[in-house]
């Protein structure tokens, strides 16, 4: 790589960081117009956190351990789930839902005409700041779980968990890009996003509880096809210091594959796009 290419790359990264800042600011200003909504939404978020915890509390009220997980350990999984849900619904799905609308109305033209990467532009178009409440809830659950466990994660485990946070977010985002790409072929995919959300809900449970279903077929599906394990169970295990090195490496590889495939599919989908407007 020559020196000028390196300078070019740095220039591009700087340009996109600046663009990101502008996009986040516009989105936040837009969302802050609805302050009453912020309070209502926050309250609903709290109720749903309670709903998410209730089955866990009842299940672990009946048993000390389920599929090898204690209550405190399972809580770490729930915390990861809450964290990722906040990321998903605060930063990923609002923008990408808008893409579907763009494709249907033919307004994607305006995005494609701009002198920046279309995937970047559509992915950073919208944020929902009130999801911060979910983020705080997730942190609260983490702290409570580790107090129950009576120990705190080592710095090395924290570092690995952070790597997994990036990995999980990338995977989540990649799957969403795949879902949205479908919009270029079948146009009506709003429901697919609900389907995605409903499947993602299963991620609040450690993957091992699905061991016995259809001779492990469900666990297989949630590991390789719709990789919930990679998004909540493995990160939780990383934080608990229970993740095998081979699993970690395999998960990293899987994340990279998902990201690459989804980028390629998005590019193909864009080529399919014929402006639908009149």
């Amino acid at each position, binding site marked *: 790589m020559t020196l000028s290419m390196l300078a070019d790359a740095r220039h591009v990264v700087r340009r996109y960081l600046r663009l990101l800042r502008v996009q986040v600011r516009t989105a936040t200003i837009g969302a802050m117009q609805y302050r009453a909504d912020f309070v209502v939404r926050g309250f609903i978020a709290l109720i749903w956190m309670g709903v998410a915890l209730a089955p866990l509390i*009842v299940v672990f009220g009946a048993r000390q351990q*389920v599929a090898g997980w204690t209550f405190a350990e399972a809580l770490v999984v729930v915390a990861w789930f809450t964290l990722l849900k906040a990321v998903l619904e605060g930063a990923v799905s609002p923008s990408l839902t808008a893409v579907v609308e763009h494709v249907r109305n033919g307004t994607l033209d305006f995005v494609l005409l701009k002198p920046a990467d279309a995937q970047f532009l559509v992915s950073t178009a919208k944020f929902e700041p009130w999801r911060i409440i979910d983020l705080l809830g997730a942190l609260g659950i983490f702290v409570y779980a580790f107090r129950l466990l009576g120990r705190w994660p080592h710095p090395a485990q924290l570092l690995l968990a952070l790597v997994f946070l990036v990995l999980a977010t990338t995977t989540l985002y990649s799957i969403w890009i795949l879902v949205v790409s479908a919009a270029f072929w079948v146009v009506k995919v709003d*429901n697919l996003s609900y389907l995605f959300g*409903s499947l993602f809900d299963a991620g609040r449970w450690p993957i091992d*509880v699905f061991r016995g279903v259809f001779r492990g077929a469900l666990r297989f599906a949630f590991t390789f096809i719709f990789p919930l394990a990679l998004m909540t169970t493995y990160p939780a295990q990383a934080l608990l210091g229970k993740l095998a090195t081979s699993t970690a490496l395999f998960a990293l590889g899987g994340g990279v594959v998902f990201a690459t495939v989804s980028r390629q599919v998005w590019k193909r989908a864009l080529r399919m796009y014929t402006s639908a407007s009149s």
Partner: protein
Amino acid sequence: MTLRRAIRAYPTLLRVGLSEVVAYRAEFLVWILTTNMPLVMLAIWHAVAKDGAVGRFDQKEFTAYYLAVQAVRLLTSTWVVWQMSMEIRDGTPAAKLLRPVHPLFAYSAEHLAAVPLRALVVSPIFAILYFTAGDRLAIHDPMLLAIALASLVGAWMLIFFTMVLLGALAFYMESALGLFELWLGIHAIFSGYLIPLEVLPPWIRGATRVLPFRYMLGFPVETLVGLETHASALRELAVQWGYVGFFFAVSLLVWRAGVRRFAAYGG
């Protein structure tokens, strides 16, 4: 007079509703697939009950319970609250109010028309239910079976009227759908959707007997899988139909008052 006219129009309205569902069949199927939480909960309770029953629930009972939850939920749910809040915002009721049939009557036909197709989709679940836990179902007891069927009809109406009530709130406030989300969360716990009500801690169980949520799901399911006795099932059926009447009246009143303050936006 108006009622007779409306009843004469009903079969046509049903046919229109049915063809609408058939036209959007792919969406309809995807919607059906989004209801999968009972199956996830089934997997979890199976792992829990592997080494012994939880209360009255052994593995087989959990299977019967959650399959029935899945089936009843799919049979009785409607999307009328989304439809109403969207339509009220974009002014569609203006046109609907001009028709000689009450809009709520038309809504009911449209949503009732989806039930046969829902039943078709749900029938494999009932088949699995029969083969895995046939001996526990209410089908061997004509009286219980009759109560179960009546409770299904009651559950559909109760859900429909409460959803109409929530939808009609869009006349008054912008975040009616936010309220609906809140409702969904409470429903998930208090109806028996996530957890069988028997397994809940006693202090919540008391509340579930009084609140309407149980009569939308938990009660028909429990009757269907044979967890209810004749006496208690009959008593609860009365409570359920009482709730149906109550929410019918309230939703009608809220709709009527809402229409009065409705200023049709758009053309």
